[in-house]
Structures are given as C-alpha cells and as structure tokens.
C-alpha cells in the first residue's frame, strides 16, 4: 500500500463516518482549546498584575519606619517607629547617586467636609516630587509646589474619586474650600484617575503639603514613608544599599539588625506578585490539562468503538489480502488525521476564546507558543498512541 493510497483510504473512512469523526474532533477541539485559552488568560492576568504594580511608579524603593526599640527591648511593631523625617529624605536625595526623585509622605485618615457632604479619606502630606515618583498625573490645576511646602500652605489636591464624593462627578472644584479635620484647605488641583479599585485605591486620596500635614493636621514631625525613585532598574540594588547605610549612619545605629526602618523595593513586590500569578497559571493549566485528558479519553473511546464496530471491515480487508500492518497503519492514519484536524481547530478555538474574553473583560491575554505546542503534542500523542 502506498502512502498516497493510505491517505486516500483515510480520507474515505473519515468522510464515511462524518458524525462520529466530527464528535471525536469536537472532543479534541475542546480539550486543546481550553488548555490554550486557560493558559493565555493566566499569563494575561499575570501581565496585567505586573503592569498594575508598575503603575504605582517605576523603579520604586519605599523606606518605611521599623519597629521602635528606643526605650526597652519591647518591640511595638513594624511601622510604629517615628524615626523618619523630612531631613532624612533631603539627605537621601543629596547623597545617594542614581536617584531620580525622593518623596517623603505622611499619611493619615481624616474626616473631610464640604458644605454638607463629607467623607473619610486618606490625607497624604507630601512634596512636589510625589507625582513623578508615584506615576500620578494632574488632570486639572496644579500639584503641590515647593513654595507650598516651604510656606505651610493650606492647599489640597484631590483624587478623582474623592472629588466625586465631595463635589459630584465631573465638577471643577478648583478654588473651592474643603475642611479637613476642621481646618480649611483650598483645592488647587485634581489628579488623573489611575483606575484602581478597592483596597489601596489610588484615586481616593487628598494631597496636601507635608509641612502642613505635620504641623496642622497630625502635629508631629516625622514622616510615614519615604518613596525613592531610582534612575533605572539596574541601579535599584545599589540605591537600596546606599539608603540603608546612610540611614544607619544618620540614626546612629551600628547593628543593621537593630535598624529602625525597613526598605521595600518594587522588585520584591513584583517577585511575590509574579509567584502568585504563576501559581494561578499552573492552576488554570491543571484544570485545562484535566479537560485535555478527558478529551484524550474521548479519543480512546472513539477509537475503541471504531475498532470493535469495524471488525467486519477489518475481516474484509484481511480477506482481500491486506496485511496486518496495512490495517494497523490505516487506523493509525485515521487517528492521526483526526487528532491533527482537532488540534488545529482547537488552537483556533482557544485563541478565539482568549480574544473574546479579553474583549469583554478587558483582561490582557497572551497566547503563548508554549501552550500551543504543549496542548498539540499531548493530543497528538494520545491520538497516535491509541490509533
């Protein structure tokens, strides 16, 4: 039997059993399609989480106060120390190389009142470099200036969600007055929405000069965090160690274990986030893998019925002089053709599904060659194995 004859026979056999063939193909299509769609969605989600983290500011290093141990060995918990000051931030900006910008901030929640409307939101006292460090853009008006910081001005920049809560949507409240903790502030600007939701919403905030926040709102002289933006991702490690050494010296601490501050780089956050999304991708792939196995069992089942149902045909083929090898080859060719057809259609379906999902949910979707190869080879393996 020649190869071309084999293909012809296979073609006739498959087209003679259209319903059965198409059901088999459907099983494979769904198996492969779901693997590809799930892996694509998983990787897309990983990508979107990564970019969300990047949107908090790129090459960001956050210096936070550590636990306070000044009077006894009793630790009062991370973040409780009040050791970081505006001066620390200024010295970091002056002494550490490869730094783009430094923005200290003091954040606390207060009740905010405007003519009957009121809300409780996070008030961030900060400086003029904050927008560039945190990737915040100004939609209307202006951000806090160095002059505002120097003169303890009572001015405020609202996040868009806060603006909606206090003044109503799409209003322009610049020049209006809001009361924060009983003190009048003049609104000078509105930030651009960053699209965050829920916990840590970056749109629901009010920015005021840090000096104003320290003196009039909190009545303290420390800051809650210092955000540092490195010039490049390569410089982050050196900037991080530079800040550590500098602050240890400034705070007169000899033992790094006793440091009254902690430094978190964006790299760390990214790493932990990507480990989460990796797990998610594996989870999705496992689910898809199970459906692939189910699809594979479908193929086996179909092949079994084909063989038992066609014993008569096999007998006939033997009677007209087909060798055992010829017959096996024919069944193999049928299986291969079914799985390959199904595989090709499955790839199309999976990609299509991924695109539809990304279209309707806005979730970024990545279709990776890896997932395609994986899904395809599994189905081909099953097909060939059982054919």
């Amino acid at each position, binding site marked *: 039997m020649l190869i071309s004859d084999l293909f012809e026979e296979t073609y006739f056999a498959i087209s003679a059993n259209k319903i059965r063939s198409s059901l088999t193909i459907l099983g494979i299509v769904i198996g492969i399609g779901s693997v590809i769609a799930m892996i694509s969605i998983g990787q897309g989600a990983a990508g979107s989480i990564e970019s969300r983290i990047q949107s908090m500011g790129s090459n960001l290093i956050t210096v936070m106060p550590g636990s306070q141990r000044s009077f006894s060995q009793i630790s009062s918990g991370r973040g409780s120390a009040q050791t970081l000051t505006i001066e620390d931030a200024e010295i970091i900006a002056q002494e550490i190389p490869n730094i783009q910008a430094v923005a200290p901030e003091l954040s606390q929640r207060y009740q905010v009142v405007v003519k009957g409307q009121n809300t409780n939101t996070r008030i961030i006292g900060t400086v003029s470099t904050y927008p560039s460090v945190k990737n915040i853009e100004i939609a209307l008006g202006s951000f806090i200036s160095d002059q505002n910081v120097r003169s303890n001005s009572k001015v405020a920049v609202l996040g868009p969600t806060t603006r909606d809560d206090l003044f109503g949507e799409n209003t322009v409240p610049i020049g209006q007055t809001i009361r924060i903790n009983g003190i009048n502030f003049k609104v000078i600007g509105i930030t651009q929405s960053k699209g965050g939701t829920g916990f840590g919403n970056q749109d629901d905030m009010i920015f005021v000069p840090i000096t104003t926040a320290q003196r009039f709102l909190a009545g303290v002289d420390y800051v809650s965090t210092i955000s540092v933006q490195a010039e490049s991702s390569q410089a982050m490690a050196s900037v991080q160690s530079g800040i550590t050494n500098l602050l240890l010296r400034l705070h007169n601490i000899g033992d790094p274990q006793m440091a009254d501050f902690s430094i978190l780089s964006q790299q760390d956050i990214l790493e932990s986030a990507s480990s989460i999304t990796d797990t998610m991708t594996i989870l999705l792939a496992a689910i898809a893998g199970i459906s692939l196995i189910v699809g594979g069992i479908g193929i086996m089942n179909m092949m079994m019925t084909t063989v038992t149902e066609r014993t008569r045909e096999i007998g006939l*083929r033997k009677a007209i002089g087909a060798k055992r090898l010829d017959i096996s080859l024919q069944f193999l060719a049928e299986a291969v053709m079914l799985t390959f057809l199904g595989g090709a259609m499955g790839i199309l379906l999976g990609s299509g599904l991924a695109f539809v999902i990304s279209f309707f949910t806005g979730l970024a979707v990545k279709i990776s060659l890896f997932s395609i190869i994986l899904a395809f080879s599994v189905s081909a393996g099953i097909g060939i194995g059982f054919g």
Partner: protein
Amino acid sequence: MIEVKNITKVYQSGNVETKVLKGISFSISDGEFVAIMGPSGSGKSTLMHILGCLDVPTSGQYFLGEKDVSQLSDDELADIRKKKIGFVFQSFNLLPRTTVLRNVVLPLVCANVSRSERGEIARKSLTKVGLDETLFHHLSNQLSGGEMQRVAIARALVNNPSIILADEPTGNLDSKTGELVLKTFQNLNQQGRTIILITHEKYIAEYAKRIISIKDGEIIEDVLSHHSEAV
C-alpha cells in the same frame, strides 16, 4: 488446481479440544463449480477458512496451484489471498456509506494497481456481474440485497483470482434475487472461473456441477449434481 490431503483442524478452548475437521481429502480442478454442503456445525465454514487461506490446518497439506500453503505465515497468506482468492460473504461486507465503485476498487488498492487503471478494471468487473452503470456512484447502503451481493461478487472478481469462494452467498437474500446471484456464478463458471460455493441448502448446492457433502468433519458424499447431468 486445488488439492487438500488429509486435513484436520483442532480448536482448543481451555482444556477442551474440539476436532472440527477429521482428515479431509479432495481435489478440485481449474474451471470446476463445486458446492460444499453440510448442516451447521459440520465444519464447512472451517474448511472454507482453510481453503480461503484465512486459517491454516492443524495437520495435512493444502496445495493451491503447485504450492503448499498449509504452513505459511500470516503475511504470506495475505499475499496469496490478494492474488488468488476472491471472497463473497453471506452478509456482503461492503463498506457502508461508500460508493459502489470505491468498494470494488478496494482490493486493487491493496494490490498496488496503479491509480489510473483502477477505475477501468472496477467498471469492467461490475459490468461482468450485470450491475447497471447508473448505480456505480450510489452509496453501498442504498442498494438492494441482490445488488449488494453482485457488487461483492464484482469485488471478488476484480483481482482476477483463480478461485472464488462464496460462503452462503444467498443466505440473506430472497429466493428470487438468490437465484439471480447463483446464475451470476454459473455465468462466471462458464467463462472458466473456478467457484467454490458453501451452503447448507440442497437446492442451492444443485446449481453447482459437483457437490461435496460433509458431516461432523468428514466427507460423506462427493457426487456430480443433477444440474451437471442436465448440461
């Protein structure tokens, strides 16, 4: 020329040995039309399997042409079936949902006949069994029983085999179409084809020229039929 010498066949199932053929010997010359007749369980189907090279005897010799084929391997037997034997079955065994022409072409595919010649040979063979040309592209399951069996005969003929083995070819047909099929065999025999017809019905066996009757694995009678006397 077929010659079987003292053929036996024993089936073993578990510890039970069943002796189906108990030393059968006969010879059939080229151009004969022989019926092998016997009730069910007489061993005639086993004999047909051996004659058709689908199985080998437990002992004894089987000469097909000049060659002893009683001890060949599976693949060698397949080769002999391909070249020398045409089968016609009780249940036709056509490929369902496949055209008539395609069914007849099938043995030619196995025999590596060139693509261009296949259609021509198949058509000739179908014409020989008296099938109408309009049916050639019908699907096999759309045909009547008589038509199906004639397609099956055409398929058996297409490789120009030296023997045609027909196993109860009229078993699934009404008597009228059955007669048509048997007449087809007679025609083929008159054209010089060797035909072995296996049946359990006396009146069907009468269409052949010679009747070998078997019972319980042994030949009980080997006679010329009334039909041949009439001719």
